[in-house]
């Protein structure tokens, strides 16, 4: 599903965020992306979502070379990628319903047509019946789940999450991770960037490890189900 070939990213000013990264995440796979702050996790996700372009190398999604995707095509690519952020990026002046329905509106659904899907998405994340509230009336964990509902409402085949549990306490974090697990089980590819190593260890999935922009472990050699310890960073 996601393939990186010798990908380097140098920001203007000379900071090298990624250095010759190679990896492949198969369709339907769930993988974690770990590493210290500034190791390049966010940059890697941004390359997948075409919020950045690589300086060198190729990023392929489902066999399509992202270097060949023109600026005009980017929105259509993003409709197939559900993105989840640490700060949820909700529209604070819109109801939960309108927030979750946003991707559907953009695709041309009317409000009544979107209702069923929005309800399904909210039920899935355990927020059924909260449609008419505003994000500000919800707790941090609930806001994060609204963000997840928005990411899955149009059933994208690929989910990207950047520190989705960054602001949450451990039990809420586990709940969120279990949600991702359930998407993975219905065949969605999931890539989660996190620094919550304890949680990663518990989840027993493939772990891609970045250090200073280089991929030092792609979770295959050491065994996908081997919990990683703190020393590997």
């Amino acid at each position: 599903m996601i393939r990186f070939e010798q990908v380097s990213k140098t920001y203007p000013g000379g900071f090298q965020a990624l250095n010759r990264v190679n990896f492949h995440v198969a369709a339907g796979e769930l993988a974690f992306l770990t590493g210290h702050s500034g190791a390049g996790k966010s940059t890697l996700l941004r390359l997948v979502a075409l919020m950045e372009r690589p300086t060198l190398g190729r990023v392929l999604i489902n066999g399509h070379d992202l270097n060949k995707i023109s600026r005009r095509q980017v929105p259509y690519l993003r409709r197939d990628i559900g993105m989840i952020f640490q700060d949820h990026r909700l529209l604070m002046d819109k109801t939960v319903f309108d927030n979750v329905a946003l991707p559907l509106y953009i695709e041309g659904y009317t409000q009544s047509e979107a209702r069923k899907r929005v309800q399904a998405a909210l039920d899935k994340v355990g927020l059924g019946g909260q449609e008419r509230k505003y994000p500000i009336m919800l707790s941090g964990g609930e806001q994060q789940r609204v963000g997840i509902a928005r990411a899955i409402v149009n059933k994208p085949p690929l989910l990207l999450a950047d520190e989705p549990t960054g602001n949450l306490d451990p039990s809420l974090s586990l709940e969120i991770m279990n949600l991702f697990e359930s998407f993975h089980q219905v065949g969605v590819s999931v890539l989660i960037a996190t620094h919550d190593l304890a949680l990663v260890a518990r989840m027993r999935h493939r772990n891609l490890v970045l250090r200073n922009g280089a991929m030092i472990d792609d979770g295959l050699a050491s065994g996908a189900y081997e919990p990683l310890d703190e020393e590997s960073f």
Partner: protein
Amino acid sequence: MGFLMRKAEQRKGAKAVKISPWRRFLMFFVNNFQQALGSLGELSRTPMASLMTIAVLGLSLTLPTTLYVVVKNAQAISAEWDSAAEINVFLRKELSPQEVQTFRERIRLMAEVDRVELIDKEAGLAEFQANSGFGSAIDYLQENPLPDVLIVVPTADFQSVERAQMLLTTLEQEREVTSASLDLKWLERLQALVRVVENSFAALGLLLCTAVVLIVGNTIRLAILNRRDEIMIMKLVGATDAYIQRPFLYTGFWYGVVGGIIAWLATTIIVIWIDASIVQFSSLYESDMSLQGLSLHDMLVVWLVAIGLGLIGSWIAVRRHVSAIEPK
């Protein structure tokens, strides 16, 4: 519509979003309509700020519109004067009264000529004597120095400056004629003056229209920057630039719609105001002039111009700023 992953999706058996092309086409208009209403709602949520911009647009257009009304009326008046053209034809003095009558008849029958009036030398002298103040001094003259004069009034078709000039040349070439004159100078000067005024008003109007575009553009730019976060989020979930731009373009459109109406009202008020003084002025000259206000056609043009300026202003802002906002 995602185009990258369809195959993967089908393979996994996930339900793809199914929207037929016809549906998509229809929804484009439904969306547009919704966004148009939405941006109208947005305006009503910030009535003061919107009203300020709309008032600037409307009042800026009022000045060129009022000037247009003035020029239109000036043109109507000068057109009336234009049609008062008369040609004075001075005849050779040695012609006998019989020859003068024949010549007069010949001129009268010309297609270009409406009517011909003869002022013979005796009548001319009498009139001169009565009006000039020389009075009895003229009695000392041995012979009448004045020629017979024909006053030729061209038909309506030949009353324009160029046509009357042509007729004048024809008449001058007649054997019986010493000279002919058409007092065109003042008419030409008036027309030139009207043109100068027209052109300077047009330049002023153009300047104001440019200012309107910039003001609308700036207002829309601020609106875009205000909603920067929202635009970023919309881009993240796959909104195209066109989708994001539309509400802002509609905002410009509504500015134009309301601004145009303000321009009508303000122009009408000003015209009524000026008209009152013009009626008073013309009554002193025992004439009943009054200003022609905006016709229905003029109003439509003003409205379209206002809407056009609103759209251009917002389009410029949107072109520059929506694409510049990229999700971080």
